[in-house]
């Protein structure tokens, strides 16, 4: 192949590349346009508004008795669940990664599959009845535990991959110096898999942030309900969606989870270690 032909081909490839990236950008950005423009529109609706600017919709949001508080509730639930999920999944994944036991993987897969059952309404029956008998309805700590239980299999599954990559020699040397297993995990392993832990934390926050059914069923006091539930109450007297509330709340409700990702990504790097070892 002649040199100009190669150059031409490279140039074509470049153009193709930019067109591809451009199309992808449009595809992913298009639905987001509504999110950033409508909250400031004078008459918010499904229509992306003509340029206009008002903060009046935020005033309406501020006056809603539950909206702002629900974001705080979401923070509590998501934060609590993320901490528990990281700690429990971290310790468990470490142990499972270090101990070779027959059937270990099978058990992990089994609970991973079971977690798909405990999502629908039918599964709310046992969970609700159990917490009701224990008098834990309207109890946020109980809800956090339930949420954590649901996320643990996937979290352990993802974290185990990270744990597998930590060279055992690190731990051996720590052990020589008389470190306890907990100290080893805390001071030797955790720093190495920190990106993995951070990833799980963000992932847990995202999962809880959007969860509607569990909080709705297990909490009765609307003052404790998280944003995912309160967002479904924004209807006017005629039963039509109240776009002033929905649009501004969408924005407010999205910001914390985006910030959470940005902070974690900057500090620890957000990534997945992957690959099941065959």
């Amino acid at each position, binding site marked *: 192949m002649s040199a100009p032909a190669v150059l031409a081909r490279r140039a074509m490839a470049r153009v193709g590349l930019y067109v591809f990236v451009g199309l992808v950008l449009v595809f992913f950005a298009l639905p987001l346009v509504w999110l950033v423009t409508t909250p400031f529109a004078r*008459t918010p*609706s499904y229509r992306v508004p003509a340029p206009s600017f008002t903060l009046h919709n935020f005033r309406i949001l501020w*006056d*809603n*008795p*539950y*909206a702002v508080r629900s974001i705080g509730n979401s923070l509590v639930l998501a934060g609590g669940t993320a901490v528990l999920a990281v700690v429990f999944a971290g310790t468990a994944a470490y*142990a499972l990664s270090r*101990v070779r*036991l027959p059937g270990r993987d099978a*058990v992990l897969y089994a609970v991973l599959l079971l977690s798909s059952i405990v999502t629908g*309404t039918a599964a*709310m*029956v*046992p969970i*609700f*009845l*159990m917490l*009701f*008998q224990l008098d834990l*309805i309207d109890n946020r700590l109980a809800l956090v535990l339930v949420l954590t239980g649901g996320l643990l299999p996937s979290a352990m599954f993802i974290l185990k991959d990270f744990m597998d990559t930590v060279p055992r020699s690190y731990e051996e040397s720590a052990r020589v110096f008389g470190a306890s297993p907990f100290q080893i995990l805390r001071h030797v392993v955790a720093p190495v898999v920190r990106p993995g832990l951070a990833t799980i934390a963000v992932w847990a926050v995202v999962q809880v942030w959007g969860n509607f059914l569990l909080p*709705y*069923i297990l909490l*009765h*006091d*609307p003052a404790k309900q998280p944003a995912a*539930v*309160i967002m*479904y*109450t*924004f*209807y*006017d*007297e*005629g*039963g*039509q969606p*109240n776009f002033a*509330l929905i649009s501004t709340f969408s924005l407010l409700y999205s910001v914390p989870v985006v910030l959470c990702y940005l902070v974690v990504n900057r500090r620890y790097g957000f990534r997945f270690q992957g690959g099941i070892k065959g």
Partner: protein
Amino acid sequence: MGSRPVATVGALAVACLVLGGCVSAKHAAGAGDPQRNADAKHATLTISTNAISGGKNAQEADWITKELIPAFEKAEKAKGRNVTVNYQANGIDDAKYGEKLELSLKAGGGPDLFVVGGDSIATYAAAGYIAPLDKVVGGEANSWTGWKQVDAAVKKNVSMNGRYYAVPNGVDGRVLYYNKKLFVKAGLPADWQPTSWADILAAGRKLATLSGVTPIQINAGTPMAEATTMQGFLPLLAGAGAEIYDAKAKKYQGDTKAVRDVLSFYRTLYRGAKLGDPRLQQDPNGRDESFTEFSQGKLGIIGESDYLWRSVVCPTKSVCNATAMPDRNSTVGYAMIPAERPGSGVGGQDFVSMSGGGGFTINPHTKYPQQAWDLLTFMRSATQIKAQLGSTVQITANKQVNDEILARDPALKFIADKVIPITRFRPSEEHYTSVGALIEEATGQVVAGKPVDEVAKAYQQGVVKLVGADHVSSN
């Protein structure tokens, strides 16, 4: 690692115990003495409705928290009783709310006072979630003076086997709304009252000559959910001379002539004469879409309940938002729904309608039945009914209040005077909800183009599977 098998075995053991204990636990309907805790120094009651301040049904939530509860607590104090009332706000999708309420009731908990729809009384009673009021609170439930103010049909809607299960809130009625301006443009009278289905179709054909106008909207299909049965199928069925459930014969309508007539009407409307927009019946937002079109003068005739008049096309922008019609009173006409032919309706009627509505009931497991009954009658007093309405107008379950307020709104007065006396209610039978789902499915299929006979057969099979062939009529 020894803990794992132990934990698993433990969980299994607990699971078996609780499964055995809870799933089969059967609540005795009505948990004992109506007079229990009647003299308690301090009582706590919880009300739950599907409303929330600042959101869905905010007016109701605000009335309960700001007016009803303070007034009631004060009144009880005057009687020397300390009663604290809590309000559980929800304001969520109705199906989701029902799910949560039913779960709580199933667990033996739940609010002390909640709303039950007239059509849910049978299902809730069968599950043990509600019981006759005279069983829960005693004989005073039957001798309450407030019953004198309640219309007989409305009483029936909250009763089963002659016993009251709830105290009614209000009632609604269905009519045909039409756009007078479009009617005049199409050469139709501004003062319209069809007397047969053929009249409706004839008006639709004239409206079809206007460009950009969908002539008729009669709800159909699954996305419209209960609006399909209440606004469409059931009033039409009543016009064809049948009620969906014959309580005497204990039979549902299966593949009967009346059902086929209704489905054929849908077919003519949406397929044959193309006077309706099949799209609206498939769209998850179809009903809202139909409201928007009607409010913008793009829809000629729509079958709806008085809710459309009050809360969708009302002139007040702050209540009805985008669908408000400042010229509603001069533009929107209303007519009774005609039977298929004059005299062909249920009971030989010329005109028909369907009504819904429910009432507040008392949880049979409440700790304080007497205090709950006090609250229930307090909230259904004329004063509190008016407080709940505020400046709005609605047909209530109290004749005296209706006389006072309906004069302010001719359309609601028309419905109260002309429609409510001839209306029908959904059956209080525990399979009705599932039959309703089959109706939604059947109407949707006809609108999508499936032949009437085929759809009617499939519908019949569905109903038979649900209630057994002995409880289905076909001819």
